[in-house]
């Protein structure tokens, strides 16, 4: 069929214009803004003052931003190991032919359909509060952890991470499950006939064929953790503190100000945004370089 250039342009134009307006323009403006001293997000460009890398230097010198970076790295690394391991384990177990697969799959996934605000409130008020009405008070005592102040400065980060991981496992489990479902069953049958037990099948069949899925999960995990915000706000709702602060929270605070401090720096906020985007890009490139899934066809 003969293609008309006019038609191609006409069909592409709405999508291209929408992309340029909704995505490219804000991204470009944010990157440029990060090199300027700008008070408010909507400030006119003639009020911008060129500041070179000053916003980035100030971030580097900020105790709060450094704490936020440390926190997000711990969430990404430790939370990532826990969440992806547990979700893979659940996916493998659910795929091993156990009875009630649909029920357990729904059960593990259920926290994902509950609002993060409700989940965080539940964890804070009924699990971790050790005063008057902590549901787990008796259980912690039995476990010898009755005196642990879960929401004190030493433990609140870990309490937040545990609660977040609880809510995240189901989502990644579903992706792993779909990856495992795609592996042809005859591969496992052949391996069983050849005498390979379940762990060997997992190591030599499931894992190599799940590399693409693992890559997807790692990318999704990185995006969701680098933009970590709601859980931090729920665990330190009225005041930002070093133990729970993340780059997104820091960006929000400096872009819009806080109660009692109305100073703002939209340029600084933009610099945080650029750093976060670079982090995701870097992780994505590292994951692509380290995990190869193009060698096996099935």
């Amino acid at each position, binding site marked *: 069929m003969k293609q008309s250039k006019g038609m191609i342009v006409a069909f592409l134009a709405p999508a291209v214009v929408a992309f340029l307006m909704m995505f490219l323009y804000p991204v470009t403006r944010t990157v440029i803004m990060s090199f300027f001293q700008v008070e408010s997000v909507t400030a006119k460009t003639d009020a911008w003052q060129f500041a070179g890398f000053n916003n980035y230097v100030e971030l580097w010198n900020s105790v709060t931003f450094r704490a936020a970076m440390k926190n997000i790295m711990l969430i990404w690394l430790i939370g990532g190991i826990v969440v992806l391991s547990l979700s893979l384990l659940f996916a493998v177990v659910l795929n091993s032919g156990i009875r009630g697969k649909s029920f357990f799959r729904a059960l593990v996934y259920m926290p994902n359909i509950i609002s993060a605000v409700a989940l965080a409130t539940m964890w804070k008020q009924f699990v971790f509060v050790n005063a008057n009405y902590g549901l787990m008070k008796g259980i912690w005592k039995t476990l010898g952890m009755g005196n642990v102040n879960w929401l004190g400065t030493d433990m609140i980060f870990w309490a937040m991470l545990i609660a977040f991981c609880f809510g995240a496992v189901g989502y990644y489990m579903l992706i792993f499950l779909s990856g495992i479902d795609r592996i042809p069953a005859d591969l496992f049958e052949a391996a069983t006939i050849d005498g390979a037990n379940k762990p060997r099948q997992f190591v030599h069949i499931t894992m190599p064929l799940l590399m693409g899925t693992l890559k997807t999960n790692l990318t999704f995990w990185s995006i969701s953790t680098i933009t970590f915000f709601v859980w931090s706000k729920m665990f330190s709702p009225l005041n930002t503190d070093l133990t729970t602060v993340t780059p997104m929270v820091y960006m929000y605070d400096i872009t819009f*100000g806080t109660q009692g401090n*109305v100073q703002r720096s939209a340029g600084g906020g933009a610099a945080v945004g650029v750093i976060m985007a670079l982090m995701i890009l870097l992780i994505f490139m590292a994951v692509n370089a380290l995990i190869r899934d193009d060698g096996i066809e099935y």
Partner: protein
Amino acid sequence: MKKIAALLVALVMMLSMTAVAEGTTELTYWSMWSSTEPQAIAIQKIIDEYTAATGVKVNVEWMGRDIKTTIETAIDAGEKVDLFDDDFQRVSQQLGGKLTDLEEMAKAVNYDDFAIAALPAAVRGWASSLKAIPYQSYSSGILYNVEMFEAAGIEAAPATWEELLAACEKLKAAGYAPFAQDDAYVRYTYGFLLARYIGQDAVKELVINGDWAENEGALKAAQRIEELHTLGYLSDEVPGTYPASQNGLGFGTTAMVVCATWVPNEVLTNTEYTGTIGMYNFPSVEGGVDPNTYANIGAQAFGIPATSENAQAAFDLIMAIVSGTGDSMLAMETNSLPCDTRNTEWPELLAGCKDAVNAQTGVYDWNMGLGENADIDATLQTNLLKLFEGGFTAQQFIDAMEEASK
């Protein structure tokens, strides 16, 4: 058929244009409240009465607290917003330059004659002129369970730190934990102590310049908190997860909390406590510069964007909310302080706070100025939590702040 439809559409458009031309004023109000909050319900009632009396239609957008992230963009984008509200410091300082100057309109209704003087004074200080009209004000001090004070034999509200310690001892002997402290307000308590020792201006200088190790008042204020901890005057769960600790006032376990006039309402809502919660002013300290009559006073405030074409109508609506029967109804239905000084009747729940508020002579900013330096805000919060937990001594707290400020 098409022609008839087109004619009908044209007719409807003409009719609607005629209605506008006839002078039906329509105001658009972006509100910081969510539609189900008591404040929103009370304001809606006032608006309904205002519309019935004047014929001015008011379209309300209940935006909730996220208004702080959207209002400036809306004003800059030329969105039709005739009035909005938010925290009075934010409205004055962040948006003052984009708002209508209300001095002349305020003068015409003698606004300063009935407003709580400290509130418009603060707005003028931040925005150089009256760019916002405060309402729904609050004041601060030490809120206490009156029954526990009586049971412990405390006859007069403590005016000095020594008297406060004596009261704590009596409360402890009577089986009550003297002080509650929630995580959200650790800077509030420390801010009060610090401002009593060195005054609010010096507090701001301290957080900006960071000479913590050199500042005797900073150490003394931290020592007072350490003292409360060492003497066993803080309840077991301090610092609690807001509002867990302050709820102790309603559960009958804890006698006092440093906070503001919204506490009685919160305690009532959370614990269904029906007894009296009183308030006395935060005590003075030995060698301090500020008396016990200085307190943090604050409010929400209305602003009118400079782009509004209905500034006078918007101002009139604001006056209906912040004065006379509107202000009284808002105070009564939301258990807050009236902003019109002619409204001498207070909500019953706040009766125990009235003497303290009326005795106040000086005004502090939020957290007594401790939030002046955004860079160390989170560090200060964390280190104060450790001080209240007992994880830091007063000296360790000062050392940590000195280190963070370098």
